[in-house]
């Protein structure tokens, strides 16, 4: 595959919800292209169609108009963990591994690997409800990674977490994306999170939902980047302020 060929391409998509007689247009004429290895963040006010765009890419919604092309395998992390309570932590990961065709005998080792990756080594035997919210969300991330997606779709995955856990997971996801070269489409409300994680940020506005602005983030992207230092970097602060201003303008318009 040539690097020029995009992983995701939406052309003039419109999504409507509700009865055909009286539809709600959630997204109107949105176009978007994500190239392999890019980390694209969608920001915008509540109800502007961020989740809808993500669900479209995940194949969970069909467009009323326009085309959706997704070239490689996707994995989804939702805002809530959505773990299966009838399975243990390891069982949740095994479920995903099985769907991905991993032989039964190889699953325990892969489960252990995935749990270490998200910082929960040795938790395979635990029941899901014994974990904290942050731990559950990490399991959800590991479960999405278990299918070895080349495109990771994340819908405000850290919104429900405390600031401390959120910063840790932001760092983990940033490192993970940089080291594996996974393409990421990430939804957030937070300008700070958008600038920290994204290589490119798309700003959306509501009524009807559409993409109104775009911003490239010229910050270092290597896996070894010190995110703590980055957060204190004046360039980071400037970008964050700029994005906040753009978002405000988009919301007011």
């Amino acid at each position: 595959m040539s690097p020029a060929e995009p992983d995701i391409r939406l052309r003039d998509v419109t999504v409507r919800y509700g009865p055909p007689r009286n539809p709600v247009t959630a997204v109107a004429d949105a176009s978007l292209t994500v190239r392999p290895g890019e980390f694209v963040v969608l920001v915008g006010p509540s109800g502007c169609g961020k989740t809808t765009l993500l669900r479209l890419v995940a194949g969970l919604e069909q467009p009323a108009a326009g085309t959706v092309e997704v070239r490689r395998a996707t994995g989804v992390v939702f805002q809530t963990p959505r773990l299966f309570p009838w399975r243990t932590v390891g069982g949740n990961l095994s479920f995903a591994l099985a769907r991905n065709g991993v032989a039964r005998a190889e699953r325990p080792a892969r489960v252990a690997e995935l749990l270490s990756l998200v910082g929960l080594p040795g938790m395979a035997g635990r029941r899901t409800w014994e974990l904290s919210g942050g731990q559950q969300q990490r399991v959800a991330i590991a479960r999405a990674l278990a299918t070895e997606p080349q495109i990771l779709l994340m819908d405000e995955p850290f919104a429900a977490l405390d600031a401390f856990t959120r910063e840790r997971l932001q760092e983990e996801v940033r490192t993970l994306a940089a080291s594996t070269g996974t393409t990421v489409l990430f939804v957030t409300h937070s300008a700070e999170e958008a600038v920290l994680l994204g290589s490119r940020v798309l700003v959306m506005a509501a009524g009807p939902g559409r993409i109104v602005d775009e911003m490239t983030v010229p910050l270092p992207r290597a896996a070894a980047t010190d995110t703590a230092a980055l957060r204190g970097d004046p360039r980071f602060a400037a970008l964050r302020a700029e994005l906040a201003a753009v978002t405000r303008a988009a919301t007011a318009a």
Partner: protein
Amino acid sequence: MTLVKETPPVAPPADAAPARRRRPAVLRWTALRLVALAVLLAAWQAIVAAGVWPRVLVPSPAEVWSAFVEASTVHDGVRGYSGYLLGEHLAVSLRRIGIGTGYAALTGIPLGLLIGVVKPVAVVLEPAVTFLRTLPPLAYLSLLVIWFGIDESPKIWLLVVAALPPIAAATAAAVRGVPGDLVEAARTLGSGPVTLLLSVRLPAALPEILTGVRIGLGVAYTSVVAAETVNGVPGIGGMIRDAQRYNQTDVVIAGIIAIGLSGILLDALFRGLERVTVPWRGRR
């Protein structure tokens, strides 16, 4: 100067762990139940002593107890009641209830899954299940006797027909109530329709399905006397029928008590089983 007067803390002693505090509570409730039972027995005895109704209609607790003992032992060369011990009558009935509920679960759960997932099946079969559910077992007993004779099979059939509708209905409701976000999550992990049904909807619905089976078991329990109306000996229902024929009210009451007590016991066992097999009940 302090306006609020300091009150000494009245925290419980540190070693009063919850586990240690629960035992007295359990004892207290058990004691309450025993007291209630004693009051009931005393009232019963008082009514009998007052002679409000003839003895034949309302025997005393002692008479019921001796009927209970007689039915449970071999006395004067007679074995229990109608040639079987009370325990044997009960065991035969329990076996029928178990087999009937078992078949009802084996057919009712897949049926409920189909009804819950496939709309056309629901349209056709859901009214049929509701129809069956509203029928009193005695209504179809005659039909079953005509079709299957008077041996074991009509009895089992009756219990299956009685227990199946609640199991199927509970299963259908349970799979319909499976949280859509879990199904969606499974779909994004690459699950096909068969995996979604058997590895997501079924386990997600299992707590409520088991509740449905427990309700079905209860219905089979209440239907067993009807099932044993014809040629029901051995069987607790047959025993009660025989006793009724000879106006042995004490045996009838002893039989009723035996059914009720074994029912409570079985229900408790089943609840324990549910706790062990579906620890995720009510969890997310």
